């Protein structure tokens, strides 16, 4: 007989006045190649229909299923139970507002981040339907894509010491986003423009270098390199700004 897995799952429905935050225990028999995606769906369909959690693509591409798995933020869809002990504790991601049980509201947080970072190409060029596309070096395109691979699961923010201490910290995800536009030749913003956005404690100078963002990133993005790169760049911009005054 295969293992009996014990799940300790955080429960709370804020809209239900009778609901109190607590942990519930569920037991499930482990099957071959079992993932948390399958396990949680099984629990909901067979044991407790009210259990809330988020999955979308269930293939590690969309980032919907970030949660704290035995103390560590990660994607539940590609977490196999065989890599975990027989007792599994699941908690919602911190920092984000709780919707219920394991489900959190990442959408609002990220939408605000796009507006803060003005996460779009700033250009005065007007698109001409009849012209060829502007040429770009393939290597530049690939470098942009490497930073564009972020799936906004929120794991890096949840694992970040600074983000846990101060609500206004933008987090590695926002700084990575700035890095993506900084290297894109189509974006006409200057380093000073970027400095206006991230040249402070909410941005690049708030990072304490604890490295957890990169440790938990399910896409293995080079977040620390990116932060180091931006810190140098913004540091130099800061000095230039001082001398210009």
């Amino acid at each position, binding site marked *: 007989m295969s293992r009996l897995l014990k799940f300790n799952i955080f429960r709370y429905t*804020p*809209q*239900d006045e009778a*609901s109190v935050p607590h942990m519930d225990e569920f037991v499930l028999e482990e*099957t*071959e*190649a079992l993932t948390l*995606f*399958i396990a949680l769906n099984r629990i909901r*369909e067979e044991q407790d*229909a*009210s*259990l*809330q959690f988020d*999955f*979308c*693509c*269930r*293939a*590690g*591409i*969309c980032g*919907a299923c970030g949660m704290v798995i035995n103390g560590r933020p990660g994607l539940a*869809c*590609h977490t*196999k139970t*065989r890599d975990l002990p027989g007792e599994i504790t699941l908690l919602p991601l911190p920092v984000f507002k709780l*919707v*219920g049980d394991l489900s959190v*509201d990442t*959408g609002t947080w*990220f*939408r605000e981040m*796009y*507006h803060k970072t*003005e*996460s*779009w*190409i700033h250009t005065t*060029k007007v*698109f001409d*339907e009849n*012209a*060829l*596309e502007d*040429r*770009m*070096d*393939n290597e*530049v*395109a*690939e470098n*942009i*894509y490497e930073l*564009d*691979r972020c*799936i*906004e699961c929120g794991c890096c923010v949840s694992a970040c010491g600074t983000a846990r201490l101060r609500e206004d910290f933008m987090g590695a995800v926002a700084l990575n986003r700035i890095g993506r536009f900084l290297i*894109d030749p*189509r974006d006409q913003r200057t380093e000073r423009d970027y400095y206006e956005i991230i040249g402070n404690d909410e941005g690049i100078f708030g990072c304490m270098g604890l490295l957890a963002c990169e440790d938990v990133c399910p896409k293995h993005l080079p977040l620390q390199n990116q932060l180091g790169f931006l810190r140098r760049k913004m540091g130099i911009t800061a000095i230039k700004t001082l001398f210009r005054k």
Partner: protein
Amino acid sequence: MQTIYTDVLVIGAGLAGERAAIEAATAGHSTICLSIVPARRSHSSAAQGGMQAGLGNSCMGDGDCPDVHFEDTVKGSDWGCDQEVARLFAERAPIEMRQLAHWGVPWNRVVPGKSTYFKGGQQFEKVEKEENAGLITSRAFGGTAKWRTCYVSDGTGHAVLFTVDNVCAQHGVEVHDKTEAISLIHDGETCFGVVARSLRTGELITYIAKATMVASGGFGRIYPNTTNAVICDGSAHTAVLDTGIVPMGNMEAVQFHPTGIVPTDILVTEGCRGDGGTLLDVNEERFMHTYEPEKAELASRDVVSRWMTHHMREGFGVKSSYGDHLWLDIRHLGEKHITGKLREVYEICTGFLGIDPIHQLIPVRPTQHYSMGGVRTNKDGAAYGLKGLFAAGEAACWDMHGFNRLGGNSLAETVVAGGIVGRKIVEYMEGTEVLFNSRIIDETYAAQKQRIDDLVSGRKGTESVYKVRADMQQALHKGANIFRTQEGLEECVDTLQKVLERARTVGLRTNGKGASPELAAALKLEGQVKMALMVAYGALKRTESRGSHNREDFPARNDRDWLVRTLAYWKNPDDMLPTLQYEPATQVTEIPPGDRGYGKMAVISSDDSKGKEG
């Protein structure tokens, strides 16, 4: 009752919806997208391969143009498509790719000089032209005469969706995420918006709009095994078919992909077989070459899926706790090839299955992949039957795919159709005055409130949401799968009708408070069973084989009797079957029906004088 007014309301914030929203917003209209998930989680993000557009920049795409793209698309559809729409699509696709480049998509670009590529496991050399350096490049895909697929590494959908969502944020398109439309508001002539349910709080919100668009993606989740995201459950379709007025087109046209992994049905690319991977049975023996001596594993998607299913039926499937499956073997391709050219497959295997494909076999089975059917629209994207209602993308039957979709054409369709239909919506807004009838708005809201109260109180019965849903999925899986027969489809329709009766007596196990997932599933269940019946009943009546629709008892494509599109209506909510009507597949015929050039098939020509009734 919270009421939100907007000019344009889009159900869905994937690529088709957001692309259309940009047109509306930049024309000065207030625009809101409703989405079940944050916009960037939409299933558009999962598309990896790329987008078809006849740019002809790469040397292997040399000479490509909209004409060639059009021809491939019509052939691919097995002549089931609307050729006017396929023409519109092919002409517009290159412009749309350039527009995306302008907005920030990091398309892979032409690198001049010599490079190598693989075909059928062999290595070849190509030379890219100096004068095309830095233009958008393309890769190979099935069913196309030229290399035509524009791509961003292995994350095309992700990169394009992030860019388009950025542009939405820039132009003030609001995305109300974790919000699900549960009913359209209409007076039988005009659509006025929707009643939606917040998936944060459970509250009902009324959205009033001059134009409403359905861009909610596919509905593969009515099948038990699908490559679709869990949100692709057809909830917006169910709101549309509830109107009784708007038909669904070609619901029986369902595409299956040969290699979904077991158990989670995540897709592993056709490239595995393209590069020389083989399919093995329970005895770890090849079988495809016995069925298709020439093409073996490299036959078309439909053909391979059919034979795999047949082989498992014959008892050669591998038993597992998730049902029968077969093996995909890529071990002989070697570590370098697998971790290089098939990196994504390697990551899926190690990450999701805990299997190392360099040394181990990959469990696979044919899996529901794409819905060619959907909300029937005209070439402007306007839904049949209701003014002010539009649809685009996989949710729609616009119908450039007919009975079989070519790879890379669906992702391109999202932005091309989104752009075209978005501009048509703007035209509609400028020429139309909409008068809202508050009584109808109040009545629709009250009816939805009542539905929820009935489900929570269990007034109509105590059937389990999840059990009924599973029975619907199993019935479709059994009867309306890759192989279809009269007997199997009759049984499927019969079973689904019993399931429909049970779906009408569902009661919740929980109190339904807050964002209750059980309530969300219950609200769409009856509509899903009706859609399943549209698939099965449409397939039962279509006595021919065309594209993905394969009738074992009618193996020929029958252009004489069936060069038509099925329109499925659910006229009365209490009906037990959809009402089917037919219309010509295309009004304009640039390319008369002929041989597709792949997959052996008998054709009953439309010239055959012994036509059926009239």
